[in-house]
């Protein structure tokens, strides 16, 4: 979807065209959900945040002047809501039980157990990243956003984003060296 297409869509939604609003929801809902899930490590909380993101988008799109992409705007709302959630729940680091709950089971028990343990370690390491590092890394690895797009979402300058992604990887590496064959 180009910026011009998005501009047209916003006009149509402003005109009360719910069909276009639903198009936006369907396009971005799982992306926003997975972003929130990797921050909050709780499915119910992530669903609630996702619901609130689109609710606010629907209520506030008249104020949205198209100065950034719709996706950027949605991720900005999601990021702020996740931050509020974590603050409210006074969560500063990952909860190992919540991380374990996210791991799915599969067919081969032993393989699944090993993979799950590995996944648990990585998610735990990710959950213990410094404030702000995790969001930057998740936006980069989960959605493949460019540094410029990440800087727009996080409202930080480009160099700050570069540093955050770099340091996030370094911190994770130091915790999971044994998993990367070190």
């Amino acid at each position: 979807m180009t910026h011009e297409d998005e501009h047209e869509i916003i006009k149509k939604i402003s005109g009360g065209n719910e069909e276009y609003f639903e198009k936006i929801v369907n396009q971005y809902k799982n992306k926003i959900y997975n972003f929130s899930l990797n921050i909050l490590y709780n499915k119910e909380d992530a669903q609630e945040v996702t619901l609130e993101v689109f609710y606010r988008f629907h209520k506030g799109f008249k104020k949205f002047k198209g100065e950034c992409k719709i996706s950027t705007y949605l991720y900005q709302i999601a990021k702020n809501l996740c931050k509020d959630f974590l603050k409210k729940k006074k969560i500063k680091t990952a909860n190992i039980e919540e991380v374990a709950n996210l791991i799915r089971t599969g067919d081969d028990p032993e393989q699944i157990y090993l993979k799950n343990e590995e996944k648990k370690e990585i998610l735990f390491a990710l959950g213990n990243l410094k404030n702000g590092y995790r969001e930057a890394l998740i936006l980069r690895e989960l959605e493949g956003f460019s540094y410029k797009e990440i800087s727009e979402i996080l409202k930080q300058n480009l160099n700050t984003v570069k540093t955050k992604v770099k340091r996030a990887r370094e911190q994770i590496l130091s915790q999971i060296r044994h998993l990367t064959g070190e």
Partner: protein
Amino acid sequence: MKNCNEIKNLLSEYLDGETDNTPGIQKHLESCADCRKEFERLKKTARTVKDHLVKDKLPESFNQRLMKKIQEPCTSRFSFKIFIPRLAYTVVVILILLGIVFYVPIKEKFAFKPAKQIEQTVVYFTQSDHQEAEKIFLVSSNDVEDEEVLINLFAENNEF
């Protein structure tokens, strides 16, 4: 020509294709085993993180829940409409508490004090043909500034 520390600092950007110096870094990696090892380590970390991020799908009922929420009156816990009355309530409580704390000192400061009676001018009049005539005219010094004004005031009231 950048040294190894400088190159290592740029490897994360290089991995993401976000550096301006791609040919320079590429050339350095071809000739430096240590930096190449560091780059491979970084690449593996990034891939490991990417592979293990949680990926899930929202339930089918999500859209329905969303439309229901949009159509309902505002009950969101994030709602500004709930926030404003709560804020107003908090402000009122704070004002009442401040009022109680400062009421007594303010009351004492602005309590009514009778006018100063620095001078009390007492005027007695006796009429020569009426022995018992005696008039006491008490005047507070707040009403008059000096004796002349006092006499004029009395004269007006008694039509001398």
